[in-house]
């Protein structure tokens, strides 16, 4: 639990202070989703759901989004990802990246639907201009993190 709270603090600090520096055309990776994605391979479904809820609340609190928007999407994300993660070979990078990109797309679409439901009316084009690039960028960053951890493990074995 302490490790999760420290991770939550670190992700919030990184997302609010540094993520915009690596942004491309205003699109930044979603570190909250990335953190939840890695958690979903390590914790049980109910824990991932609760963690997704808390991560989402923090993401909403530090954005212009209505409080509860990402709490909703990341709760669903935590619940679904733990179920899907059981069927994914954790030793292979590519399937995990595809899962990460798909979850980014699905949760982004869910956020778009919720915004529409609450009359914030994002244009349909936001699916292409916000949801898709965010999902791809997050997956790309996830690939870099997985690749780096794989490289580190390989170096440790050699040494």
């Amino acid at each position, binding site marked *: 639990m302490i490790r999760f709270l420290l991770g939550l603090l670190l992700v919030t600090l990184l997302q*609010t202070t540094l993520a915009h520096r690596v942004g491309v*055309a205003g699109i930044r990776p*979603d570190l909250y989703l990335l953190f939840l994605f890695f958690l979903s391979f390590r914790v049980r479904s109910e824990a991932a759901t609760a963690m997704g809820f808390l991560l989402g609340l923090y993401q909403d609190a530090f*954005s212009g989004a*209505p409080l*509860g928007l990402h709490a909703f999407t990341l709760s669903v994300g935590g619940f679904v990802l733990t179920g899907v993660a059981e069927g994914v070979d954790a030793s292979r990078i590519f399937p995990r990246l595809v899962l990460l990109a798909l979850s980014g797309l699905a949760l982004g679409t869910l956020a778009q639907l919720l*915004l529409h439901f609450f009359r914030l009316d994002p244009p349909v084009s936001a699916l292409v201009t916000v949801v898709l690039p965010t999902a791809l960028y997050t997956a790309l960053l996830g690939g870099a993190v997985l690749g780096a951890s794989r490289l580190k493990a390989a170096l440790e074995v050699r040494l």
Partner: protein
Amino acid sequence: MLLRVFLRYRRTVILSVALLVSFLFMTLQVRERGPLVDLVERGLVLTVTPFLKLYAAVTGTGSRLWVNYVDLRNVRAENLRLQEEAAALREEVRRFAEAGQENARLRRLLDLPESREFELVTAQVIAKDTTNWFKTILINKGSEAAVRRNLPVISTEGLVGRVVEVMPGTAKVQLLTDPVSSVGALLQEQRATGLVTGDRGQSATVKYLPLMAEVRVGDAVLTSGMGGIFPKGILIGTVTAIHRKSGALFQEAAIQPSVNFGRMEEVLVITGERGSGPPRARGVPPAAER
């Protein structure tokens, strides 16, 4: 019994509770943010704000040290360049002083009020929006520094946005590029009015410009002063493209904001006008103030 049921269906129960609470929070904000949502959000922000302020202080000090070091290395060349610039500026100041005196004379002749001066609070940007959907920033001044909801925020380059939430020690500012933001605008040359709205990117759009207005690329866009939040005459940006659709009643113009939001580190909150009360909170009912 109840515990047994909970343990058996705990996955579904936890998911249902999380979704229900999230949905409830969103529902409570549809019309106006309630005290419960405010309380939760303040609690969440306050747990991270000390770390954000610490980070801003450390990076600010590091940045200043680096800038000082670079300045020292270039001080001689810089000195010569500044001497030349100072000479040119002295001449410019003389001309402005002339123009100022003329302006004062003409104002007296026309019986116009003197230009307004604002009371400003300087604040540091300590965090940026966590999503790609919205465009907000968090500043390190809040209710203790007389920052209130709906106060305009500017920088030395132009308009930044307005305060949307105030907490002790921090405030959330909605940038003019936020998709929910709208600012009354005035084209400086044409004197045509419109409405600037954000478009999720780094740019914004002026909507509802009259078709007869001859908008040109490069035209300056200022705040119109209408709407009761932003003072008139603050630079918003410059026109980069004009869009006229056949059959449309209005034309639109894409604008490049004068403020570089990506590099913005300090902002100024307009808390009032010298010699009068807070100008821009006028028209805001007391109940909307937080």
